[in-house]
């Protein structure tokens, strides 16, 4: 289910670009490089763990601006910043905004490779987490609306008879619907179900 990770390099300096590609390739990483932020944006987002090695100084906009733009577009790609002359406030801002690392050129090869590994790991983790939620959501979506209602009430701590009373149905009916929904959701216990629903509701609530 996981394809090979990709490292994206954005630097306007061709020789830096090519040397980065060479270096990263020595550890078996797949590298794609771009001369500007714009050309990178035109690439279809990959279905694989990836990270971005980004030069702070970019033609047309600064690297920090680009970081903000990506966030605005909900493109959650981990970023490793490279700078010719970085100062502390600049690096703090970058890290706060979610950068994995802020490396000053020239850097040790291991530092870059470590940063890239961390970034890729973080992206893989993020992708896995995203995948679980997606699964749960799919299971949840497969429930009937009455089952979804019953589960939601269960998760909020209501008892069977309370649910039955509220829905105007028999307690036994609620019990059947509950066990059927639990089965569809692959929940082993009520606690398990509550955890699953929590994962789904988080983002969806934010979105609504």
């Amino acid at each position, binding site marked *: 289910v996981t394809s090979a990770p990709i490292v994206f390099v954005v630097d306007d*300096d061709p*020789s*830096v670009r*090519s*040397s*980065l590609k*060479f*270096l990263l*390739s*020595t*550890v078996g990483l797949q590298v794609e490089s771009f001369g500007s932020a714009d050309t990178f944006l035109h690439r279809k987002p990959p279905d694989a763990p990836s990270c971005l090695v980004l030069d*702070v*100084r970019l*033609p*047309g*906009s*600064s*690297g920090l*601006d680009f970081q903000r733009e990506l966030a605005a577009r909900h493109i959650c790609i981990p970023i490793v910043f*490279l*700078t*010719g*002359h970085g100062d502390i406030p600049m690096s703090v801002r970058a890290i706060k905004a979610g950068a994995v690392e802020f490396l*000053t*050129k*020239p*850097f*040790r*090869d291991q530092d870059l490779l470590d940063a890239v590994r961390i970034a890729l790991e973080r992206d893989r983790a993020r992708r896995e987490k995203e995948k679980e939620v997606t699964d749960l959501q799919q299971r949840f979506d497969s429930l009937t609306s009455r089952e979804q209602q019953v589960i939601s009430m269960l998760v909020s701590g209501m008892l069977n008879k309370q649910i039955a009373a509220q829905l105007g149905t028999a307690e036994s009916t609620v019990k059947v619907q509950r066990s059927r929904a639990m089965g569809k959701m692959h929940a082993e216990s009520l606690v398990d179900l509550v955890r699953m629903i929590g994962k789904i509701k988080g983002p969806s609530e934010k979105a609504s």
Partner: protein
Amino acid sequence: MTSETQDAKQPVDPLDLRNLVETMPLPAVCALPDGSVEFVNRAWQEYTGCSLEQLSGWLWQTTIHPDDVARFIDEWTVALAGGTSFQTEARIRRADGQCHWFLIRKVLAVTPTRGRESLQRTLIACEDIHERRQAEVKLQQSEALLLAFFENSPNLIFVKNPQSRYVYANKAFKKAFHISGEVKGKTDDELFSAEQAAAFQAVDRRVLHTGLLMKYEDVALYEDGLHTRIVQKFPLFNAEGEIYAIGGAVTDITDRKREESALRYSEENYRLVVETAPDAVISIDERGAILFANPATARIFGYDPTELMGKPLTVLMPEFLRKLHEKGFSRYLATGQRHINWQGTELTALRKNGQEFPVEISFGELSRDGHRVFTGFIRDISERKQAEEMRAARARQIAVRADVSMAFGKEESLKTILAECSEAIVRHLDAAFARIWTLSDDGEMLELQASAGMYTNLGGPHSHIPMGQFKIGMIAQERKPHLTNDVFNDPRISDRAWAEKEGMTSFAGYPLTVGDRTIGVLAMFSRKPFTPETTETLASAADLIAQGIERKYAEDRLRDSERSLRHLTETIPQMLWSAEVDGAVDYCNRRVLDYTGLPAEQVHRAGWMNAVHQDDSEQMARAWKRAVSSGEPFQYEFRFLRSADHTYRWCVSSALPLRDREGRIIKWFGSVVDLHDWKEAQQALQMTQIELARVSRLTTMGELAASIAHEVNQPLTAVINNSSACLRLLAANNLKPEVLRRALEEIVADGTRASAVIARIRAFIKKAPAEPSELDVNEVIQEVLALAGRELVENRVLVECHLAKFLPLVLADRVQLQQVLLNLIMNGIEAMIAVTDRPRALWVESRVDDSGEILVAVRDSGTGLGAEADRVFTPFFTTKANGMGMGLSISRSLVENHAGRLWAAPNFPIGAVFSFTLPVSAGSPA
């Protein structure tokens, strides 16, 4: 003659003819066409004492005087043969041997009609004209005698016909009047001055009119002095009693005059002279009472002589002379002292009708019967006076015109000239004062230019007279003279009280006109009435003055324009020259001579080449030659020797040809401009620009460090990356040679690149930054605009400055301030590069803001900042493809280092405005 022709047609019998001839009382002959005589009549025979036989045939001709016979026969033969008329005079011998003059003429020609007598007969009659002939001879002799007498007479004798043409004048006459040629047929006008001729002819007329002898005394100037002459003119009557000529005799009585006191005319002579004298002769006694007056007195004074008897002489004098006369006369009687000259004194006399007239008086004194009698000869000299007046007037006119012309001939100002003109008028025309006004350029005002005589002040109320006002303005407007001899009653004379007080009687004002333009007024006041001659003189003077002023104006204009042109050519701070068609320089202005230090003649032709640097001269001469032959405009940059410091300086010489209408070059006009200072300034400016660029990099070193590090770190990073990668592959035993080679190639390239960056950085850092000093921001703005000038022009950006005057100084580093301004201006220019639909305008403003700081704003009409206004100062933010994104950031830190602020705002309606403030220097007089 007429009867002869008629008779000729009538047939006459010869016998009848013979009878007819016989009965004629005059000697007569009948001749045949061959000239022979058929018969002679009795009267002829008796006269000559010859028989018919002795006279018939050709014999009768023997009676003709031998001196006359040849001529006679010629005429006789011709007349008889041709049947023409015949008349001649000849002497014919009488019986007693004496010859008498006869008039011999053809009386009758008869053509017989009866057969046998076929020859024509001619009847000749002879008339004894001996007595008449002798009288003629006598007359001729007497005429010759008279002529000799006249010719040799010491008197001047002449005869004129009634038309006053000379018929005769003797030698003495010619000699006296210095006439060398023929007098006969001429008039006095042709021989004498107009005045003299008029006087002579006046007497002639009088002689013709009265038929009387005119006799008068005349004084004339000869080489040896004054001569007194008695002139007598008398009519010559013909038999019919008509005057056919005027005789004249002039007797020089000078010698006699000299002895006059000793001479006494006889009573008769005296009376004769007196009675016939054309002059009034008046005698008075010791009391001044008139004893006697001759007939001429009546004509001259209008009094009958008898009417004057016993009256005082003073009645013949005008009022003002009477007292003088009485005093003088009584003094003379008492002391013998004369109060006037007794001979030929000119005085004014009074006619009976009250008219005053000029007279010439000569008088003498004699004692008779113990009484003293004074006799005066009084001659009316009105005509002479008039003639004199006319001559004097003409002389005045000539004098005025001459003076006016002379004044205008001088190289003086118009005022001076007109002053001389007015003085001439006063002097010659006896004016009280004369003035000249000229019309102002706008034609509104008459300005007093000259005043001579009793008033010479050019100021006062008459100095400016509006056109059309007062008498002067009206004269100018109407362009008509105004003349009056009666100023008291003239409506145009405003100040009559003044005129009366000053005794002014006359005023004359003339417009000064040229064509139909009025250019001024000439006016004069006089205490004496103007005569027509005076006004004529004034008119002619006005005319001359007007022409003179006009010419002067034209000259002044020409001179001004010529002077200003010459002045221009001589003072223009440029070297000017001209050359002939062949390229030979023929004129150089002062500047050229001053510059080269060469005299004109050494610069002319090709002499100027001597001042050209030897490295340039050959090329330049070629270029000039090419221009001259092609007619193309000439321009050449060369080094020219300036004499002042003896250095060669860069100059540019340019020349254009002047062409005539046909396009032929007639002249070259050129200039030489010393470019040296300009060139040096250009170089200095360039140096400044380079310096500024260098220094600006230097001063922003701190800020640029980031950028520089970036520049260096880029290749360094690549080198390290490539090397690390190789090491990793080597460690993994996975390094392929071609991979290694490519990596090493890149490492070398990047290493080289890094060292180049280092070299550039080293070049940056050479000089220390300038010290802060007190600066005038406006001055810095001007410097920076000059530096950015090329960019502004190339990008077609219009700059508008709104710089506050007298800005307080700021304490700042000049170069850093320049850097900031240059950065803002360059940003502005670049922001407008994309603008094509509106003017690219850049406004630079300086002022003191509300907080008392100096504010400088740079506005552009470019694309504007949009939402990024706040971020433009962020390092590494750039909207430019090749910008580092540091300029505004650096500018802001520079301004902040000077305790100022720098910010950006949208400009209205479009574009951006970047402003910064700087605190006023503590030492500045705020």
